[in-house]
């Protein structure tokens, strides 16, 4: 596609339920990032995929959070047993990756509300 696509755009879930957030990166981009952004705050790094390398999971806040990526395409971020503090916008970005750094392109985000 022309840009990074995230779905759903909004998700309201009950506390304790599991949620899956989806990201379709730009075709050909080997690098994919997930960030969390709480209201009025900056971007908190969650996880980073680069090609076939092991993902950098150093930003995942707890073992309730996990992410997968199928090859160099779709990624899903799963949050198990959601808590109210998980409410935030979850942003996905992709970039060309490789040895030369290039800018990352962001999707519009998924706004997660845990009630």
């Amino acid at each position: 596609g022309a840009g990074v696509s995230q779905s759903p755009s909004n998700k309201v879930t009950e506390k304790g339920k599991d949620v899956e957030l989806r990201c379709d990166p730009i075709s050909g981009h080997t690098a994919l990032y997930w960030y969390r952004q709480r209201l009025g705050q900056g971007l908190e790094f969650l996880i980073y995929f680069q090609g076939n390398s092991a993902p950098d999971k150093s930003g995942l806040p707890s073992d309730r959070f996990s992410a997968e990526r199928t090859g160099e395409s779709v990624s899903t971020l799963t949050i198990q047993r959601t808590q109210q503090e998980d409410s935030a916008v979850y942003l996905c970005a992709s970039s060309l990756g490789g040895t030369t750094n290039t800018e990352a392109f962001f999707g519009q985000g998924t706004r997660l509300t845990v009630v």
Partner: protein
Amino acid sequence: GESVGLHLPTLSVQEGDNSIINCAYSNSASDYFIWYKQESGKGPQFIIDIRSNMDKRQGQRVTVLLNKTVKHLSLQIAATQPGDSAVYFCAVPVYNQGGKLIFGQGTELSVKP
């Protein structure tokens, strides 16, 4: 580890004035820097980038200055317009971690008509 900070959380300017948004980084080995603009309800949008072999780079109404000696970069917006109102983030790939991007906390720019 890598950290990125901003000097001011908010900036208010008059329409037509120039705006300067600052950012400090911690790793002297960092070699690539990006500025993003985030409007309300949207994902961050790339504005301009600069590599460490440059001190200055200009775009349309925007200029990024890099001072490697003090590990500081700034974004200058000329003739600021109401449409420039947004949160601005600097971002730096973590050195030797394959491009993992770390973002500063952001500066909210408000433009008064």
